[in-house]
């Protein structure tokens, strides 16, 4: 089975990749594709929040969203180092949900792994998250990893 692991550069997407390794049997996975999607018409086409920050000179930094996506893909792929399956990396461009589904179709994937969208008002009322759209139209099962609940300070005081 081929697995597509999507990353939007968020820490949640890194957690999703780790979640896969926590329960799946690497012997049954033939290959993994780590996919990042750039949104060229967005204010920030790709924001990498998971690799080590690089210092940029004025005028040169943040210019290449492609490099940011590459760093994020590398960081997620590193999760699978030594785990077993062969890991491929891919950076695509366009609408995230559509591109993730297309990547899954191209690789004839048996599973898509991604982080959940938020549960905020904007997602419910307006357009829905990328994860919701992928779930609706994916050609294969989708593993949507929800972020861990926030630790409450009040609980800590009681303990």
């Amino acid at each position, binding site marked *: 089975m081929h697995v597509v692991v999507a990353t939007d550069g968020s820490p949640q997407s890194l957690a999703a990749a780790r979640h896969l390794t926590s329960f799946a049997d690497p012997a049954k996975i033939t290959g993994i594709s780590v996919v990042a999607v750039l949104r060229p018409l967005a204010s920030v086409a790709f924001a990498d929040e998971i690799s080590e920050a690089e210092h940029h000179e004025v005028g040169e930094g*943040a210019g*290449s969203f492609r490099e940011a996506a590459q760093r994020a893909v590398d960081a997620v792929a590193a999760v699978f180092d030594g785990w077993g399956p062969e890991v491929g990396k891919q950076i695509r461009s366009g*609408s995230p949900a559509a591109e993730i589904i297309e990547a899954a179709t191209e690789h004839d994937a048996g599973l898509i792994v991604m982080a959940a969208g938020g549960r905020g008002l904007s997602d419910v009322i307006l357009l829905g998250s990328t994860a919701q759209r992928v779930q609706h139209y994916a050609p294969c099962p989708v593993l949507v990893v929800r972020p861990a609940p926030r630790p409450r300070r009040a609980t800590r005081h009681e303990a």
Partner: protein
Amino acid sequence: MAETSTGASTVDDEDTGLRRSITGGQLFFYTLGDVLGSGIYVLIGLVAAAVGGAFWIAFALGVTVAAITGAAYAELVTKYPQAAGASLYIKKAFGSTALTFLVTVSFLSASFAATGSLATGFASYFATLWDGPPALLVSLVFVLALVVVNFIGITESVVMNMLMTFVEVAGLLVIMVIGIWFIAQGDADFGVLADISVSGNPALAVLAGIAFSFFAMTGFENTANVAEETIEPHRNFPRSLVGGMVVAGLVYVLVSMAAALTVPTDQLADSDAALLEVVKQGILPFSTDVMTTLFSVIALIAITNTTLVTIVTQPRILYGMAKEDVVPGVFARIHATRRSPWVGLLFSAAVVAALLIAGSIVVSAGGIDLVNTLALVTVVLLLAIYALVIVACLKLRGQDEDGRTYRANTPLLMVGLIGNLAILGFAVYDDPSSLVWCAGLIAVGVVLFLVEYAAGSRNRPPGARRGDPEAVSRRDA
């Protein structure tokens, strides 16, 4: 499987790095839409007032200078296909951090001013549909709505972009058809097209017109944003960028000729929504009311399209500057699910709103015309940047080139440089107070820089200013 279970088993897909999504055609329409909306609907009256019936000459010349500047951009984009735009080119050519910072802040300021001007133009056309709410309220709600739309991510649709561009072109085609119809009826007086009815030096009058018409061409530099995602940028970028600008320019010249023929120049000059005057002449055999409403809607869509791009660009610039540590790191904050730079967006909205309110207070106190001043502020800052970009293009000749690099015509670039400087000189000479507005906008940037400097975030370890402390701790866990 055992053979591949080593850490070195990571291999790239064969198509890594080649997946780009913007085609040459899409880039052409992106440029066209971005350029077309920006000025013609808002500023044609001002150009007519400055020059007289021959104001199409001002458009033709302004468009030519802008298109040459576009060629310099195209050459630099094919060498450095990144989203940073002018500030990257200046950095590569001159290596000066201070100059690069100044250019970035100027560009950002120009973008704020352009948004303010477009929002005011939107309010003028809106008033022709519904005269109820005050113009200031309309323009504020307009900007706020676009910020929300940008946050959600609707602006990212290429299809949406194309649709809006088609509507824009359709609106200008209506004007051209009216002009042709008018000529066909035999009522046209072509003498108007040679009329420079302004007292004083006709050359200065045309120069004034060019300064305004130049605003109508701005926006093309935003296409550098999508350079990285353009398929075959070496081939597609110069074609689509310069092609889009030339087509836009041609449309402008024809539209201004049609407007000059069909409507008395004074009437154009006095109107806040000048192109609407052409429709109101009732030359086409349709109900004038229906045509007026239809055209107002088209104008609103056209202005919206261009304003959207400026509002997409501002947070992007702020994000880049935050990453470079020249503005506070908070501007690099990304919304967890929407992946939008929400702090930058809010900041843009706040600056534009402040600009609109300040301008409105000045006008009500009997001061200067807001649209006029904002447009000139934009032009002064942008002209300086454009001139620098052309110099950077010439200076970077011979560096980072390969066989596929597009090369703009050198004598043409010289003409463009002189053109930019001449218009810049005139804009300042004509209205020295625009320098005060520019200084005010740049001061915002300098304050940001000082705040960042005082905060001393340069000493922070890498990754510590990622915004969400929880995200950092989760990564470490």
